């Protein structure tokens, strides 16, 4: 494509990110560091000298590192079993592992604590309100994300390279370590960076499961902003959070680019094989299946406890909480839970369209390989910049919206369009990270061949690259939709009581007395889980008729 077209492709998404992310965040940070019209950096010295700050930073890094390490370690066998092998019920299990990712953390907190608290089925372990509980919940949320991002590359990795290594005498483990793992490294690094950011900005789940003792930077920013209105401290902490996030992005970017190269991709149907567990199965397969079965069972426990309690009232089994979804509860709501579900779906549609429009264009731009070094540097910076919305506190963004978007032409504070925009901000990095590895893996020789045969750059994009990326775009759409369905942080600052989303309704119900309201909150959570599982399995099967053939 001509330079002008690329300039527009860079400018439009950037303008969107600047207007709805950079500008609001800068505005709220400015309130914290500007006193009476001049810059006052005294807050930095104060906050950085406080030992509590460093304890909080330590918690953030420690919990995120543990959560990410465990999630990735468990998800690699999971990706193999769920994407490289076929077995009956695979779609169901894939749907199940996607559910935790979008459950509102309030619900997950209560579900976990129902298991772990004294008196719960796992109370004897003594894990209630401990680091173990926090890390377990972080893994619970993010396992499905890693499985999916890694699995979607793995299922199409040409098996012949590994087969060749085996033929040449390598053990299954050696063939995996020297052939498959290096090919998967960019996808793993992508997923790990995402998970690290999600863990480092986890908030409600840390508070509910660990308590203030394990407070992270995100928790402190929330406390300082919404409870104490100490914007000075909040600004310093937000800057610290940005530094942590930027360092993570640089590190994972290094790891990715060193490994990233075009991969031999084939149609998924050709790379997968039926799962064998009989006498002829190799040990590696057995271990992978064992680890995955245990992990999935552990994920299912809190979901199961949620399901069971949604079916109980006064010590007996009942469906009345599900019937109640058609009502406004014990006058706790302004609309029925079904209405809220419809509002959620509509908001999510808007957010998904926005996120795809911005994210896919950004991914295309980022997949270029400019010849000049300055060009490559600029792309590297852009690559990191699109991830920032994941690493900045929802409170900072939400409060930023309020003080930045308050004058025409951008007076959007009580407008409903702000909700999908805020949700799209969270999805855009996911879209980019899902689509980009596939675009970068496309063999440049395909593009060159098309160009040689006379196709213009636009035609190459349209007939070569987009069709190959379509499947990952479908997957990204599923992610974006699911994230938007489950988003609570930013939404809670923007939602209007007459148009609540499903997570807002769940949160409201949980805050009301009465076993009926509590049961209804859990029934609504089960509804949300089912919708999400359906969306994710559908998105995964979305495949345009021609896309498979390459």
């Amino acid at each position, binding site marked *: 494509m001509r330079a002008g077209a690329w300039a527009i492709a860079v400018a439009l998404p950037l303008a969107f990110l600047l207007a709805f992310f950079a500008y609001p965040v800068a505005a709220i940070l400015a309130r914290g560091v500007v006193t009476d019209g001049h810059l006052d950096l005294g807050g930095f010295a104060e906050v950085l000298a406080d030992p509590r700050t460093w304890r909080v930073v330590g918690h953030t890094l420690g919990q995120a590192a543990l959560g990410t390490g465990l999630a990735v370690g468990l998800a690699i066998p999971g990706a193999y079993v769920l994407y490289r092998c076929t077995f009956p019920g695979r779609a169901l299990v894939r749907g199940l592992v996607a559910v935790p990712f979008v459950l509102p953390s309030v619900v997950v907190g*209560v579900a976990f*604590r129902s298991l772990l*608290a004294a*008196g719960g089925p796992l109370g004897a372990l003594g894990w209630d309100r401990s680091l173990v509980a926090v890390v377990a919940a972080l893994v619970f949320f993010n396992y499905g994300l890693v499985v999916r991002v890694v699995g979607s590359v793995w299922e199409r990795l040409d098996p012949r390279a590994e087969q060749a290594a085996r033929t040449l005498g390598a053990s299954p483990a050696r063939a995996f370590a020297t052939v498959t793992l290096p090919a998967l490294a960019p996808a793993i690094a992508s997923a790990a960076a995402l998970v690290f950011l999600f863990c480092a900005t986890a908030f409600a789940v840390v*508070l*509910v499961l660990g*308590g*203030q*003792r394990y407070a992270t930077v995100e928790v402190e920013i929330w*406390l300082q902003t*919404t409870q*104490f209105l100490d914007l000075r401290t909040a600004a310093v902490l937000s800057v610290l959070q940005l530094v942590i996030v930027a360092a993570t992005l640089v590190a994972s970017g290094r790891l990715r680019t060193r490994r990233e190269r075009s991969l*031999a*991709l*084939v*149609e998924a149907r050709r790379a997968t094989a039926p799962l064998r567990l009989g006498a002829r199965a190799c040990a590696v397969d057995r271990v992978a299946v064992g680890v995955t079965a245990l992990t999935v069972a552990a994920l299912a426990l809190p979901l199961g406890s949620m399901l069971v309690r949604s079916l109980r009232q*006064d010590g007996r089994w009942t469906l009345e909480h599900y019937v109640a979804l058609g009502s406004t509860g014990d*006058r*706790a*709501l*302004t*609309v*029925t839970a079904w*209405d809220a579900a*419809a*509002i959620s779906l*509509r*908001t999510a*549609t808007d957010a998904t369209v926005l996120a795809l429009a911005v994210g896919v264009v950004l991914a295309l731009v980022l997949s270029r390989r400019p010849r000049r070094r300055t060009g490559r540097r600029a792309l590297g910076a852009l690559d990191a910049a699109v991830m920032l919305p994941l690493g900045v506190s929802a409170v900072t963004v939400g409060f930023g919206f309020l003080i930045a978007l*308050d*004058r025409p032409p951008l*007076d959007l*504070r*009580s*407008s*409903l369009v702000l*909700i*999908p925009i805020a949700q799209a901000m969270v999805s855009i990095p996911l879209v980019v990270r899902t689509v980009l590895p596939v675009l970068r893996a496309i063999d440049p*020789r395909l593009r060159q061949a098309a160009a040689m045969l006379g196709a213009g750059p636009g035609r190459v994009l349209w007939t070569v690259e987009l069709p190959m990326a379509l499947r990952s775009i479908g997957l990204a759409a599923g992610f974006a939709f699911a994230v938007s369905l489950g988003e609570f942080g930013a939404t*809670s*600052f*923007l*939602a*209007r*009581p*007459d*148009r609540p989303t499903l997570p*807002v309704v769940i949160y409201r119900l*949980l*805050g009301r*007395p009465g*076993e009926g309201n*509590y049961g209804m909150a859990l029934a609504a959570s089960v509804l949300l889980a089912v919708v999400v599982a359906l969306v994710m399995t*559908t*998105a995964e*099967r*979305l495949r*345009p*008729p021609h896309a498979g*053939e390459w």
Partner: protein
Amino acid sequence: MSSSTVTSTSPSRRARVRRTLLPTAALAAVLSLTACSLVGGGGGASDEGGATADQTSDGATTADGEASAGTGASPSSITLVTHDSFALSEDVLASFTEQTGIEVTVVAPGDGGALVNQLVLTKDSPLGDVVFGVDTTFASRAMDEGVFAPYTSPALPASAEQYLLGDALTPVDVSDVCLNVDLAWYEENGQTPPASLEDLTQPEYAGQLVVTNPATSSPGLAFLLTTVAAFGGADGSSTAGDGSGWLSYWERLRDNDVLVVDGWSDAYYVDFSGGGGDGTRPVVLSYASSPPYTVGDDGEPTTAALLDTCFRQVEFAGVLTGAANPEGAQAFVDFLLSPAVQADVPGSMYVYPVDDTVALPDDWAQWAPLATTPFAVPADEIAANRSTWIDQWTQTVLD
């Protein structure tokens, strides 16, 4: 070479197309059923939503939507800014528009603390015209920042005068944050339930209490203030070891194995033995209005509030400085004090009317009396010491 571009037309091609088209069609159907879009689709939930809120809520998405943001609104509409627990019966809210011709748009940007802090941040370009839901613990900060314009409602009932704060805030409802006990648990275990704050530091009640964190939960802060009012140290300094300061009370609670969790729902539904789950602790921090919701098959509640442990919270309404429609905002404040709204608040928001001539629902009248002598701390003292107290509490109880 290895980058295999498979070009063979697979025999199962048609089957595959059908397999992939099905989910595509299903998704398309779902999307069209849901009108595809929040912003575009005007139908759906808005048909059933609050009649008054809807016409303006659709307007808010159009180009002239700024009208509902409080900057240049037409005199026939107001924007109510409130917290995320706000609720009134639909017909009650609709009656305001019927009586006055004023349309109401409701915005709820977060919980009580987030609400007040957002009001302070946006005072030069207010979020709306009228606010409901500023409570005792945040009121002073909002007033000191000049968020509210002076207004005293002529509709103020006599019983509300004791709660008046400055010349701008109108008390609308009250609630008591109290410890609740699980009567059924004590009966089963043959123990007498505790009755006072002091009882809970006794060894026989060790490991029985669950409360919420004052830094993250509003009842938690109310209970901290209860102990400040009950045991002294309101100036933040008298925490010396004479055994009377509020911090030393918390030390004794801590030594008696109090459990601190971060939110009310967590405490009530997970840890409290009377919340319907597997909880093991028979004393929980909740509200005076909670017991009626535990009425069992025998018509008696299984829990009770300890009325000597209560902190009274008052929720206020006020007209915002710089409101586009101050007259409409004042009319709404008056409306909140009308008998119709006052009678509606117990059912819709689980709080008590500030007007004591309004009858309570029967089960409340029977099972949920307010405390006769609740604890209180003056609003300006709370504002001055809030973060110090929370810090001291955190260091004593959590660290």
